[in-house]
């Protein structure tokens, strides 16, 4: 619980002076993500830069330092019956707000409750010049200047060290129920999409081991009426299931095989491969567990209208994020230059060429 902005700025300025790149660290729970980095690089550690700066429940806006653990945010929100609607996954006790935005990680409700990228309203960031800058704000509508806040989502800290994040938060639903039915994959994907096209209180849809899981959340009457209409077996301890899906604690994830994350057209038909599939986000996010060639997986993702990353395990010395088109690569390189001309932040973490 401290504001160590000055210290962080000093570290960046010193790194700039000495041309010594930095490895940005928060809770350290996502070290496995991105490309393998040189662990001998100096840390720019934001874990100490923690604490809620402001929280106005009736404004639906929360601002916290980037090193604030998600658990701390959720405790404060729960006291006001509110939540981080993007259900951020945590891969360890220490998962922080800054790391969540940098990796753009959102949970099972993402198609309906939006992503961390969608909910971010503003940030403060130290760029490669050692300047502490503020972008966006603490209001829900703000179109002054370029949207630097959302640009950070997925950039893995390559544009600077975020020190503060403002978010839109939402009320917790009054009621939640989960329905399960037996179903093979193709049929499940089709049902998920059909149901998502109906004006019903659906907030998650997942397929695993020939079972289709549908979550309903909202007003009691609406949830009950839809549950009665759609049918299915009620899942006991459903919260535990969705939490374990979110945090990758289900048995599907406990393997030493490489884990691939596909973000695709929700109706896409994905090829049968030798490994296992888990379908989330109503079809728009597919997890594949199994050894595969990166370029081949990119082709599969492209055919499905989307992109892929090697999320966990496998060869992390090559590329792990879907390759941008040549034009998009040039723009990302120029933006890197615009924020971090000396290449101080997280070299090689996102792409080999950055």
């Amino acid at each position, binding site marked *: 619980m401290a504001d160590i902005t000055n210290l962080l700025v000093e570290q960046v300025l010193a790194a700039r002076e000495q041309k010594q790149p930095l490895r940005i660290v928060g809770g350290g729970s996502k070290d496995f993500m991105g490309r393998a980095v040189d662990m001998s690089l100096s840390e720019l550690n934001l874990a100490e830069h923690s604490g809620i700066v402001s929280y106005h429940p009736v404004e639906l806006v929360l601002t916290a330092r980037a090193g604030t653990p998600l658990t701390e945010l959720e405790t404060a929100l729960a006291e006001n019956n509110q939540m981080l609607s993007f259900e951020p996954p945590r891969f360890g006790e220490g998962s922080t707000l800054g790391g969540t935005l940098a990796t753009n990680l959102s949970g099972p409700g993402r198609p309906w409750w939006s992503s961390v990228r969608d909910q971010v309203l503003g940030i403060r960031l130290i760029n490669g010049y050692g300047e502490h800058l503020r972008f966006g704000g603490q*209001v829900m509508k703000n179109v002054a200047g370029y949207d630097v806040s959302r640009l950070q989502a997925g950039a893995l800290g390559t544009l600077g060290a975020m020190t503060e994040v403002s978010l839109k938060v939402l009320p917790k639903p009054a009621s939640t129920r989960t329905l399960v039915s037996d179903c093979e994959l193709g049929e499940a994907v089709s049902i998920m999409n059909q149901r998502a096209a109906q004006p019903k209180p659906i907030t998650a849809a997942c397929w695993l081991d020939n079972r289709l899981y549908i979550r309903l959340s909202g007003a009691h009457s609406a949830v009950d009426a839809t549950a009665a209409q759609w049918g299915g077996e009620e899942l006991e301890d459903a919260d535990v299931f969705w939490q374990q899906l979110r945090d990758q604690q289900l048995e599907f994830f406990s393997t030493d095989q490489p884990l691939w994350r596909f973000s695709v057209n929700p109706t896409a038909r994905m090829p049968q491969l030798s490994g296992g599939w888990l379908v989330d986000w109503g079809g728009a996010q597919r997890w594949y567990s199994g050894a595969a060639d990166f370029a081949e997986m990119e082709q599969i993702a492209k055919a499905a209208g989307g992109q892929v990353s090697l999320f966990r395990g496998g060869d992390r010395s090559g590329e792990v994020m879907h390759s941008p088109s040549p034009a998009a690569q040039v723009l990302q390189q120029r933006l890197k230059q615009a924020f971090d001309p000396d290449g101080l932040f997280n070299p090689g973490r996102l792409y080999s060429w950055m």
Partner: protein
Amino acid sequence: MSNAGKRVDREALAQRFRQFIDPEYVISDDETLKPYECDGLSVYCEQPMLVVLPETVEQAQQVLRICHQEGVPVVARGAGTGLCAGAMPHPEGVVLSMAKFDRILEIDTLARAARVQPGVRNLAISEAAGKNGLYYGPDPSSQIACTIGGNVAENSGGVHCLKYGLTVHNLLSVDLLTVEGERLTLGSEGLDCYGMDLMALMTGSEGLLGIVTEVRVKLLPKPEVAQVVMAGFDSVQTAGDAVGAIIAEGIIPGGLEMMDGHAIVAAEAFAKAGYPTEAQALLLCEVDGTSEEVHEHIDAVESLFKRLGATSVRTSHNEEERARLWQGRKSAFPAVGRISPDYYCMDGTIPRGQLAHVLTEMDRKSQECGLRVANVFHAGDGNLHPLILFDANVPGELEKTEAFGAWILELCVEVGGCITGEHGVGVEKIRQMPAQFNDSEIEQFHRIKAAFDPAGTLNPGKGIPTLRQCQEYRSLDKDIEPNAGAAAQLHAHDHDHGQGGHHHG
């Protein structure tokens, strides 16, 4: 910032364009150029060198290549309904109208997405998707005319943003042309992409970073039911508290609008919606969803309004009643236009809790400078639209209005808000940018711009002020004449403008 120094001959350039674009769609005569000299904010006018209306991406690409080669500024234009002079032409530049790109290419019902060209009107998407029970979320009130390409450029909002988000939340992918004429796709058919979120950066960039050539938008299922509760209050403070109480109840309304006393009286006289004209504030709270959910929430909202001391409460029980209750709010702008020769529409956002304070201060200032102001407010998300009433035929009144407007935007920043919620910066608010951003932040914006457009030929002079403009702003005594430049520009062109602000959401 721009290298548009070198003079290019108008007719010679037009001839080059006419080699690959239907000659009729390369406009170079003064009379036909006239309608392009401004967008929806007609106090800012400029005649362009040329207007081109390409019909294919290849033609647009070729236009950009030639302009890039010749250092000619390019200003993209959709329907020209923007409210910040973002599409105001450059005198030595080309207006690239995307009006011919008006086809809906695909409605993918199962995946709930539509692929459209940039010149497709916002409302046309919902109309086309409606057959399948779907619609496009953001609904700026210019939606019958404004186009999706312009919506991307401005990150347009509307009255349903609190629940359904802005343009940036409802896009899947955007196809672009860079300033060099290179094609580029950002986003995908999936929900997330990897790497820096260039699509988010592009959204709301006001035509400074690239030209939109195709958009894939998300479609939502049409709610089963929507009902609206109207409530009158005897003070803005109470109405503001009622908004907070709805949120605290855990209800996210589809729409939540507030009007102040002046706006209520004007709207009622115009639309006869049955608004309580003695009220100091009026709330319209629309709840949408399944019929069960709407019934549950409407009951809660009604009793909450009564408990908090609403002086009148009325709920729609059918579509006709709902339309009638909205009619007053929807016609608030023309209604205000009727009680004043001109009006100027502002667009700040504030934390909702500051509403009473901001309105009180605005009232005080209004009396001080002798200009009436009526307020309509997207109360759910804090987006305030003060309408300053003035008469441009009274010498000095426009200048006074602009100074008052600038003062309001600065007040919004002071209480923790911003200078523009949904209309954009364009030319209009470029002077107030330094109130919200310091010089280092402005410089960072310039470096972003340079990453996309090193020569600065895409929509030059908009969106981001030069550091010199920032210094001028900071050294100004703001109470005297903060916006004198705009007024000078107006008179220099001796333009017969009608209403300063236009109808909008």
